[in-house]
């Protein structure tokens, strides 16, 4: 009765590269029956294990002193437009359509990435173990899933014209009912009927949700119920919503509740300029614009959490155009300075000399 199931190893592949419905670009199958869409930043896709899973709510905690959450929103929205996903954008400004002019264009990144080892040639990677013959080459990333965006070039007209983009200003009404109606009508177009047949997917981007300019900003229970409603609508649709909010605008208990409601929680931190200590501590301090912290990564249909390789990443612009997220690298500590920061519990301990002995 059981169909013959031949397995060569007990491992099952985590990532399969073919998208489930060929007519919808930009989807990728993930583990446990989830489907991913790209965040717009290749590094972030890799850190989060594939991208944002459909049906999840992503919240980004802003730092009032740094505008980097806008970059996350921009790449998300641009990726959606490039892949032709319908988009709903809400922001506390009088003319939200103006933001569409600042979206980046996919850049043709022809530069080599020296960091990625070239696995096609077997000699460059030397493995000192007997089972090297079982190693397989990893396939290179597919282009229609995610793009590298050139932050300095505005998005081309072909991606903006005729696309279903809905813009809502959060300043229009004194409460959230207008925004709620827009979200409800938008999400009703992407119902999740069965997981294998995805008709279309949508993206929602809400910027500065608790901005002090909005009239509802002191009604915290209204804001919490809006997010709760959005999350419940998302769970039964094929869409992803990204909401940015400044946590200092809320009371601590509301801020904590909002953070708990998120499926994926990121936060942005500004860095001080001209700080001598940081310059000594980090390599590449001059290029770093800010830090991105990963607090929570969405896991659907499973109880096993994702433990990322690091919780803090530096945001920088490679060649002044392409957003890159990198692990923080400590500059070599010279012998004269006795203390080293950031050695809480890690095996680097107190390194006193330049030679590293492992």
């Amino acid at each position, binding site marked *: 009765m059981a169909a013959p199931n031949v397995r060569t190893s007990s491992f099952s592949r985590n990532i399969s590269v073919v998208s489930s419905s060929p007519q919808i670009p930009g989807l990728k199958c993930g583990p446990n029956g989830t489907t991913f869409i790209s965040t717009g930043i290749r590094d972030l896709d890799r850190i989060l294990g594939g991208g944002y899973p459909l049906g999840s709510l992503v919240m980004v905690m802003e730092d*009032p*002193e*740094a*505008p*980097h959450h806008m970059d996350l929103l921009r790449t998300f929205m641009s990726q959606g437009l490039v892949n032709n996903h319908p988009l709903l954008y809400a922001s506390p400004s009088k003319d939200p359509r103006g933001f569409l002019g600042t979206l980046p264009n996919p850049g043709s990144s022809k530069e080599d990435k020296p*960091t990625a080892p070239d696995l096609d040639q077997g000699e460059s990677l*030397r493995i*000192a*173990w*007997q089972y090297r013959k079982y190693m397989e080459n990893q396939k290179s990333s597919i282009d229609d899933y995610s793009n590298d965006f050139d932050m300095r070039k505005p998005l081309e007209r072909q991606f903006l014209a005729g696309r279903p983009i809905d813009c809502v200003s959060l300043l229009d009404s004194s409460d959230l009912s207008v925004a709620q109606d827009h979200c409800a009508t938008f999400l009703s177009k992407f119902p999740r009927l069965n997981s294998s047949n995805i008709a279309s997917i949508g993206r929602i981007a809400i910027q500065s949700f608790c*901005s*002090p*300019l*909005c*009239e509802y*900003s*002191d009604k915290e229970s209204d804001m919490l119920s809006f997010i709760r409603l959005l999350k419940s609508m998302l769970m039964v649709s094929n869409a992803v919503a990204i909401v940015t909010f*400044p946590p*200092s*605008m*809320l*009371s601590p208990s509301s801020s904590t509740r909002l953070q708990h409601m998120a499926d994926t929680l990121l936060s942005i*931190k*500004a*860095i*001080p*300029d*001209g*700080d001598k*200590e*940081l310059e000594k*501590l*980090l*390599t590449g301090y001059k290029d770093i*614009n*800010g*830090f991105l912290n990963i607090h929570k990564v969405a896991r659907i249909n499973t109880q096993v959490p994702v433990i990322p390789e*690091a*919780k*803090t990443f530096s945001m920088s612009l490679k060649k002044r155009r392409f957003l890159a997220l990198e*692990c*923080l*690298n*400590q*500059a*070599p500590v010279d012998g004269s300075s006795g203390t080293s*920061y*950031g050695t*809480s*519990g*890690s095996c*680097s301990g107190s390194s006193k000399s330049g*030679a*590293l002995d492992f």
Partner: protein
Amino acid sequence: MADSIFRKLRDGGEEGELAPALTIEETVASPFALDVSCYLLANLSSSILAGKSKSEGLVLVTFSRSPSFYLQFLKQKGIFVSSSSKWIRVLDCYTDPLGWIDQPSPGVITEGSSLIKLHKCVSDLKRLFSSIIEAGREMVGDGKTRFSVAIDSVNELLRHSSMPLVSGLLTDLRSHAQVSSLFWSLNTDLHQEKVTNALEYISTMKANLEPFCPSSDGKRNALENLFLVHQDFGKGQFHIRFKLRKGRVRVMSEEYHVDQTGINFSPISSVETIIAATKSLIPKVHFNLQLSEKERVEKEKVVLPFEHQDHGKSTEIYDGRRTLADGKTEATPLSSGELQADVVSSGKGGEIIYFRDSDDEHPDSDEDPDDDLDI
């Protein structure tokens, strides 16, 4: 450092960008925001008069002091304001903010008929906004010339209106094409933290005044503390945070000292007061795992354990201890089948004597212990 704020305000913002805005925060223990405002006012006025500033006029909206106070202060500083001055306008929200006094001619008051305008009905912020813009336009006209706006303090504004409306007003002022810069002051002890955070959110620069010793509220028996507080009352630290375009924050600190003539700034005397916030930012930093050229060359030379199996000849295993001065490490030839003892010296006096377990067979033989597994 206070100079740098003044310069930012004087230079204003770029075309098409929101105007730079400064929040001056004071506390009950260091209530000198008024002095800082006056300092900035005097500097801005003199630069406008000298023609060095991008803005050609100044609109002063007074809430906590009467207009005559400011005019007198400016006179003290050598800047004379008469009714025919074209570079300054004062919006008087101090005398009668809620419109309780009936006046036959509600628009105009005393000397300086066009200089000082009485503004009633402070709670209607849309009208306040239009009055400010009107006053500005009176000075500089309707074209592209710009003016600066100084709001005495927003404490009174927040008393009469809610937070969203006040921040809406300030943001509208910032986004108006003719406003080149804007500043206001606030007492953080009078408001909730949310309000302070919201005002910091919409401003590009934040200055706060801190006393030297922390206020000892609640300590009844600390007479010495009281004495210290009293002694140090006019002095403290002045911290500034600038939001830069790239997304970084520039932090500067100075000491201030208030006396009869006003407020004076001086650089920080003791270094320890600057707190290194870096420790909180970086939880765990990894070492750089990239290889430099030299390291790559060294790596090529290492012979890995299973790599020499197919060659059929013995090789010396390079274990990278050439850097040590004593070359006591022996790489014993693999073909000898005798009892082998590797003596490894760590170079520091200790010795490790290692007897290999399976010495009767060739080390690193080709036998794969997993070969007898039958999957």
